[in-house]
């Protein structure tokens, strides 16, 4: 079976949290051109933002000499994004729930939770320094009626 070609694809690298907005804007521009709706755009923006923030802050420890790589493929019906940092990885099998009453008043720790709730597929590389996410166009995830 022939593999479908994406409508848009590419790789972006960044090193600081100050560059996250630029990366998200570039991706959102592509989604806009391909007529992804507002809620898909919001969901992808949020998930990518969280993934990049985690990669730079926790993965690369904000070392300006380290990069985070974003690989993306945009199809008419789905978006695949992989974020990879140069860190040692983290234990993705044991992530505290952000809705646990004991952690509700924490200032941080919601990124993975939000990625899980807004993206249709989420998986981590074995080492724990990369995350792959997929959202399907028109997905109900993150919409008010979604369970």
């Amino acid at each position: 079976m022939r593999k479908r070609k994406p409508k848009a694809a590419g790789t972006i690298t960044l090193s600081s949290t100050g560059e996250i907005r630029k990366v998200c804007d570039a991706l959102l521009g592509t989604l806009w051109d391909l007529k992804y709706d507002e809620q898909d755009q919001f969901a992808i923006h949020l998930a990518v933002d969280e993934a990049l923030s985690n990669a730079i802050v926790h993965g690369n420890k904000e070392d300006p000499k380290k990069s985070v790589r974003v690989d993306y493929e945009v199809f008419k019906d789905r978006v695949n994004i992989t974020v990879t940092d140069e860190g040692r990885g983290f234990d993705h099998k044991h992530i505290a729930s952000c809705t646990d009453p004991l952690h509700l008043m924490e200032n941080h720790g919601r990124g993975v939770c939000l990625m899980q709730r807004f993206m249709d597929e989420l998986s981590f590389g074995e080492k724990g320094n990369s995350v792959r996410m997929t959202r399907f166009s028109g997905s109900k995830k993150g919409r008010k009626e979604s369970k």
Partner: protein
Amino acid sequence: MGKDFNTIIVEKRGDATIIRFKQSDILDQINIQEIGEEMSRLVEETRGIKLIVDFKGVEYLSSTVLGKLITLKRKVDAQSGKLRLCNIKKTILEVFSITKLDTIFEIKPTLDAAVAGF
């Protein structure tokens, strides 16, 4: 009051102090640090503040902002004040719901509703 802040607009309505964001459409890592500092400074200067954060015009916010709001709430509570949020867009409201922060913050649909009973 508004002259002292770079990122927020502060106004009074009765007993309520209302904060709006100057560059309101996106709240993320680029602007939230200074916004958080200015909101905290306002609270620290006003014991017993009845504070409303008006999200009118905010189209997007990252989870960093949620952290700043939690810090703000702690400061307001420590000063025996009250905090309400209002005019939160539906997509962003879902973020509060998913993270269960809608159980921590008092959220009103409009500014008038937030001011009422303060």
